[in-house]
C-alpha cells in the first residue's frame, strides 16, 4: 500500500501544476533571482574602491600604524578636479583609494566624486577618528565598506592601547607574566594589521552575505504552503478528490505521511540545488557543508510542518489558503530584513527585543543558523539554534498529531 500510494502521490504531485510549479519551480526561480541580484551588488562594491581623503595628526609612530593599515587595504590616489585618481590600476584587494592631506575637499564631497573625509587624531592616548560621509554617498556600498573598516580599525586600536596599559599595570604588580607574554609582545609590535583585515573582510561581506542568508530563509517560507496542501488534499471537505481518498480504507495518517514524503523530498532537493548554486557562485555561504545542509533542511521541514499543523488543526478554505500564500512570504520578507531599510531595522529590533518571536519565524532561524556558521568563532550558538529548531519541529509534529484526530466536516 505504501508503495502504491508513494508511486501515485509522487506522480500526481510532480505532474500537477500547483504541486510542481508553485512548490518547486517558484521557490527555485525566486531564490535565484534574489541571490543573483545580490551578487551584482557585491561585484559593484568590488569594482569601485571608495575614495577617501584622510587628515592625519599625532606622533609619527602612531601615524605610521594608521598609514600601514590603510595602505594594506587600498591604493594611493592623487587629488585632481575629477576627484581621486589612483596612481595605478586598483586590484581586487583594493577597497580604498586614499590620499593623506589637509586639502579642502568639500566640493569633491558635494559632487560625490569622493566617498568620505576622515580626520584622525593620534595626539592623545586614544585614537580619535571622525568620518564624514556626504548624504549622497550614504547608501553607497563603497562608502559603507570604508566606514566599516576604519571604524573597526579605530576600535581595535583603542582596545590594544588599553590592553597594553592593563598588562603593564599587572607586570608592575608583580604578577606572573608568562601567560600574558604573547599579548605584550603583540601590543609592543603595534597593531596586528592582518587580524584587523580579517575581521574587516568578514564585516565587509557581512551585509550582502546577510541578504543571501535571509533569502535562503525566505525560500523556506514558501514551503508552508506545501505543508498546507499535503494535509488539505487528504481531507474530504476540500472536494471530490479529497472525498475519494477519505472514503478509502487507507487511514488519513498514512495518506498524509506519504504525501509528506512525496512532496517534502522534492522541496528539500530544490533547496539543496539552491545551496549548490550559492556555493558554486561563492556567495559567502559557510563551507561547512554538513552544517549548512542541516540547518536548511530543518528550516524546510519546520516550514512544511507548520503548514501541516495549521491545516490539520483548522478547516482551511481556498480563500484561507490564498491569504496564507500571499501573506506569509511578505511577512517573512519583512521580518527577515529583505524589504529595505525599515525591514532591516524591524528584524534587528525583534532580534534584540523579542528573540522569542524571531525563533518562531523559520526564515529567521535559518538565516541565523547560517550566519552563526559563517561568522561565529565556535559552534556553541549554532548548536543552540539547531536545538531550538529541533524542539520547534517536535512541537509542530505534536500539533499535527493532535490535528489528525479531528474530523473537519
Amino acid at each position, binding site marked *: *500500500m505504501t508503495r*502504491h*500510494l508513494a508511486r*501515485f502521490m509522487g*506522480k*500526481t504531485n510532480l*505532474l*500537477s501544476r500547483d504541486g510542481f510549479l508553485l512548490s518547486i519551480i517558484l521557490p527555485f526561480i525566486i531564490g535565484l533571482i534574489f541571490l543573483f541580484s545580490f551578487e551584482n551588488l557585491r561585484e559593484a562594491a568590488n569594482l569601485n574602491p571608495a575614495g577617501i581623503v584622510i587628515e592625519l595628526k599625532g606622533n609619527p609612530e602612531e601615524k605610521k600604524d594608521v598609514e600601514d593599515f590603510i595602505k594594506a587595504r587600498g591604493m594611493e590616489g592623487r587629488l585632481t578636479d575629477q576627484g581621486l585618481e589612483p596612481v595605478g590600476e586598483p586590484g581586487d584587494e583594493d577597497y580604498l583609494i586614499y590620499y593623506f592631506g589637509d586639502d579642502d575637499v568639500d566640493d569633491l564631497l558635494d559632487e560625490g566624486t569622493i566617498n568620505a573625509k576622515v580626520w584622525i587624531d593620534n595626539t592623545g592616548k586614544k585614537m580619535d577618528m571622525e568620518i564624514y560621509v556626504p548624504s549622497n554617498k550614504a547608501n553607497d556600498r563603497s562608502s559603507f565598506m570604508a566606514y566599516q573598516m576604519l571604524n573597526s580599525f579605530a576600535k581595535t586600536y583603542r582596545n590594544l592601547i588599553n590592553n597594553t596599559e592593563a598588562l603593564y599595570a599587572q607586570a608592575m604588580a608583580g604578577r606572573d607574566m608568562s601567560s600574558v607574554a604573547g599579548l605584550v609582545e603583540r601590543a609592543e609590535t603595534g597593531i596586528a594589521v592582518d587580524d584587523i583585515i580579517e575581521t574587516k573582510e568578514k564585516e565587509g561581506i557581512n551585509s550582502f552575505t546577510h541578504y543571501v542568508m535571509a533569502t535562503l530563509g525566505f525560500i523556506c517560507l514558501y514551503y508552508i504552503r506545501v505543508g498546507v496542501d499535503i494535509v488539505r488534499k487528504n481531507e*474530504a*471537505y476540500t*472536494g*471530490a*478528490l*479529497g*472525498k*475519494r*481518498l*477519505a*472514503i*478509502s*480504507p*487507507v*487511514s*488519513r495518517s498514512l495518506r498524509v505521511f506519504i504525501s509528506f514524503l512525496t512532496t517534502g523530498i522534492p522541496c528539500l532537493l530544490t533547496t539543496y540545488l539552491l545551496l549548490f548554486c550559492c556555493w558554486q557562485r561563492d556567495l559567502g555561504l559557510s563551507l561547512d557543508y554538513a552544517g549548512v545542509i542541516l540547518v536548511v533542511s530543518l528550516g524546510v521541514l519546520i516550514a512544511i510542518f507548520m503548514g501541516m499543523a495549521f491545516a490539520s488543526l483548522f478547516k482551511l478554505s481556498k480563500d484561507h489558503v490564498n491569504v496564507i500564500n500571499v501573506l506569509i512570504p511578505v511577512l517573512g520578507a519583512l521580518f527577515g530584513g529583505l524589504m529595505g531599510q525599515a525591514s532591516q531595522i524591524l528584524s534587528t529590533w525583534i532580534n534584540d527585543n523579542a528573540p522569542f518571536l524571531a525563533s518562531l519565524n523559520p526564515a529567521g532561524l535559518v538565516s541565523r543558523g547560517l550566519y552563526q556558521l559563517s561568522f561565529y568563532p565556535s559552534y556553541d550558538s549554532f548548536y543552540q539554534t539547531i536545538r531550538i529548531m529541533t524542539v520547534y519541529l517536535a512541537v509542530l509534529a505534536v500539533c499535527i498529531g493532535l490535528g489528525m484526530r479531528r*474530523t473537519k*466536516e
Partner: protein
Amino acid sequence: MLVEMKDIVKRYGNLLALDYFDLEAEKGEIYGLLGPNGSGKTTAINCMLSLIKFDNGTVNLFGEKMSPKRDDLKERIGLVMQDIGVYDELTVEENITYFCGLYISDRKKRKAYVEEAIDFVGMDSHRKFKPPRLSGGLKRRLNLACGIAHKPDLIILDEPTVAVDPQSRNHILENVRALAQEGKTIIYTTHYMEEVEAICDRLSIIDRGKVLVRGTTEEIKAMSSSGEIIHVKAFHLEDDLLDRIRDMKEVDAVNYEPAAGQLVVYFSKGESGLMSLLRLFEEKNTDFFDLHVKTPSLNDVFLEITGKELRDND
C-alpha cells in the same frame, strides 16, 4: 438492513439540510433517492459515509456503526460522487488503477478489476487519455469507473448519469442493474424520475431534507389522487361530443382549446377510459391524431405533495 440511517439532522448554520432523515436499504436492492436540486441528497450521502459530521442521528452500515475510522467498513463501499474526482495528471487507466489500488493490494487481481471497470464504462479506446482531453460525459464515466472498480458490496451513485448521452446512460443503467443482481446494494440518487422508475426497487422522495414518501414506484404512484390523463389533437369538435365525454362516469374534467385543437381529458383515479373515449370518437366519426395517454408519474405525486415540479422539463 445493510444501510440504516435514523433521525439524521444536519444543519449548515441556519439552513436545515437534513431534517430527521431516515433511510433503510436491504442487501441486493437498488434504492433510489429522488429529489430536486438542493433537497439534501448529497448531504445525506456524506452523512451516511461519515464524510461530514451531523447534529443528530445514527448511521449503521452492514449492521455496524459507521465512523471515519471504520476502515473495515470503508473497504466494502464504493462511492461515485456527483462532482468529478479524478486526477488530471493521470491517464484514465492510471486513475482507475490508483483508486482501485487503495482497496486491492494484489497486483494481478487489481489489473483484472481495472480492466473490468474500463469495460463497464466502455472506455477501452480512451484508456491512455488524460481527463482534460475527455468530454464531460466521458469524464463522468471515468468518475464512475474509479468508484466501483474495487467491486464494493455497497455502491453509492450520486447522479452518475448527468451529462451522459442516452446510449451510454442506458449502458450504465443496465450495468447497475447487473451489479444489483450480483448481490450488490446500490443507493442511487438522481433527479431523473425515468431512471428511478427504470431501475430502483424502492425509493424515497425528498425535499428540503425531509423524506416525503417512500416505497416502490408503484406504491408511490398509487398515492396520487389523479388517474390517467389523455391528450389528443382534434379540430372542430362538436359540443355534443364534448358533453358526452364530460358525462362519462370515469371522467373528472375535460379541457378543450378549439384554436389549438387540444383536448385534455382527466380520468379519476384507478380508471382507464381510453377505450370508451375512442368509441365515442368513432361514433361521431371525428378525426383525431397525436393521441397519448399519461399515467400519473412520480413528478405528479411530488407536485401534489409540495405544489411544485420535481424538476424543470429537460
